[in-house]
């Protein structure tokens, strides 16, 4: 999905090919070995994608195959609107408070209406009139004046964008747009 790619979340990046092949290795594979009936089964890919898939909220077994982009071939609309069987009463939305350092009052937003980080950040930027800048796994929102952070269900303050979107929406309790100078302690240190 575009948002994950923008934020460079390689670990959970949805790819075109069978899971487990990175762009590089896929290209090498394609030129070196003609495809035979015996394709690498997705299970072999588990190392890089396992942690991400396991932590996802879907019911998964240890041998869950990571998602291949566009497979199974169901319209995005249908995928996005299918409720898992196990849910009980419909939650009406995931409303979280959003505070910004220096702003006089808080706002609330519904995380459910966003499809991913790009949309969320844009909405926050519009709401509070700031620019978060580019996210990178290594350096977070390096150099930005304001940095989006959130409190997770364990009470820890985390940088927005580190974990897969689903995991984020399920664990985010509130959002805080911190001043860049204060946020340095949260940034990923290499």
């Amino acid at each position, binding site marked *: 999905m*575009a948002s994950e790619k923008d934020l460079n979340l390689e670990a959970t990046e949805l790819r*075109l090919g069978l899971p487990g092949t990175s762009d590089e290795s896929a290209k090498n594979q394609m030129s070196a070995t003609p495809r035979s009936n015996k394709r690498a089964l997705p299970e072999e890919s588990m190392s890089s994608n396992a942690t991400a898939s396991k932590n996802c909220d879907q019911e998964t077994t240890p041998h869950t195959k990571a998602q291949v*982009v*566009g*497979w199974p071939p169901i*319209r*995005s609309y249908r995928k996005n609107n*299918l*409720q898992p069987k196990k849910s009980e009463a419909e939650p009406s939305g995931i409303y979280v408070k959003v505070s910004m350092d220096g702003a006089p009052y808080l706002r609330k937003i519904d995380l459910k209406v966003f499809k991913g980080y790009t949309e969320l950040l844009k909405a926050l930027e519009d709401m509070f009139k700031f620019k978060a800048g580019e996210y990178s796994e290594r350096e977070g929102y390096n150099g930005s004046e304001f940095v989006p952070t959130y409190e997770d269900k364990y009470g820890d303050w985390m940088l927005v964008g580190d974990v897969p979107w689903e995991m984020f929406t399920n664990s985010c309790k509130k959002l805080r747009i911190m001043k860049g100078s204060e946020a340095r302690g949260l940034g990923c240190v290499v």
Partner: protein
Amino acid sequence: MLWGSRKTINMNYFPDEVLEHVFDFITSHKDRNSVSLVCKSWYKIEKYSRQRVFLGNCYAICPERLIARFPELKSLTLKGKPHFADFNLVPDDWGGFLYPWIKAMAKSRIGLEELKLKRMVVSDESLELLSKSFPNFKSLVLVSCEGFTTDGLAAIASNCRFLRELDLQENEVEDHRGHWLSCFPESCTSLVSLNFACLKGEINLASLERLVARSTNLKSLRLNRAVPFDTLQRLLIRAPQLVDLGTGSYVHDPSSEAYNKFKAAIQSCNSIRSLSGFLEVAPRCMSAIYPICENLTFLNLSYAAGLQSNELTKLIQHCRKLQRLWILDCIGDKGLGVVASTCKELQELRVFPSNPFDAGNAAVTEEGLILVSEGCPKLNSLLYFCQQMTNAALITVANCTNFIRFRLCILDPIKPDPVTNQPLDEGFGAIVRSCKGLKRLSLSGLLTDQVFYYIGMYAKKHEMLSIAFAGDSDKGMLYVLNGCKKLRKLEIRDCPFGDAALLEDMGEYETMRSLWMSTCDVTLGACKMLAKKMPNLNVEIINESEQTESNLDDSQKVDKMYLYRTLVGHREDAPEFVWLL
């Protein structure tokens, strides 16, 4: 004298109006296209009498030329993005914009009355211009489109005074939670069909009730999730003449007053033949629907994830006249057995996965499909997402020779026959051999070049073929291109088909609408050559990496290629990541 000595009939003896009247009876697009090729005079008459136009690819021609060709255009169907865009394989902003079409038609004073769009980008601006430019506008059908918000719908509601149909199917609509529905003026009483099931936001319920009450011709009403059960019951009382109903929320307390009223109301709805919705459903409350089941011909429970298999089967047992059934796989093989023994009129079956990403747990297998194919002799259209399939099962299913559409999707895309561990070549081979009328086929499972050999040999009427993770070599693709002469759309992903296959018979692509190949073995150089040799084709490369066209070398494989025939050359609206070769 009509009959000359050479015994030829001179149709041109008849005045134009007579010919025009004759042509009125020719409704199929293909036939009308043929009529226009007969001679100049027929071309002219056909041109001025043609009101309905279908454009399977909006980039095959430009709006201005279409309008010049058919100045009396009243009804237009347009399709935009390639089919695989439905599955996120095409980036946003690829194209398929509606606005230029509306602008051109408005400028030329086309008397547009009907517009049907699929996979197009529809902006609010275009909807607003549409609503203000065509005073007789009657019908808007949007399928799998995006780019608009409820503000655009408000413009349609406010300005289209004679609107009969507003049908929104599976669109991504930004919901501003405004009062678009309230924008239908009190004077608007012409609605026949209203489908807003795909909208996520609240609507003004009182406005909805008033609208339904004054739309005495309303035949089709599909609600969204935000419409509560209580309102549903009141709407049914006002519209007992409905033929097609899509419920919104179907959550209620079985002991409530609303439930009793609903039961009474639905009894009067004798005309309902098509039922869908149940976007939110309370279990064990479907019995209220039973009274209308015996007349149903179409039942769509594919979004009703709250229903368990036994409730589904109990419901279906009442639906003896069902012709089309869309359902989730939680019905299970046994449930499909109930379908097979109850629905003897069944023509179309679609079984969708309730857990699309959990290939280990799909609830239907080849067993369910066998039961349905054996029990439903009229079955001709299938979409089946399943856990596994065997050759033996497909060979049995092939006894059902009426298939026109056969789309099988095994959730693990390269899974072999679990019993024999063989590829599914023989099974699909049996299908294409027996089903002589097959027009559309989607394959999945472990497949070698052999299946394509069979397709090329037997699938003479094929028009659309979807292939993923299949084949061993270029031979596969060549079998198809050489054998399926009626092919219009070919879409391929993740197959080892390369330059040799792509370039073997370039002329073939001019007889087709389009070809999509992604994550295959075609190189940039081959695509460039194809583009150079075939000026009537647009060859587009979608490149999402950082590299620019100049950095990539001709021997590198392209990620995604989409080519289509066109009369107007390169399109002007392609974004940066689309290279027009």
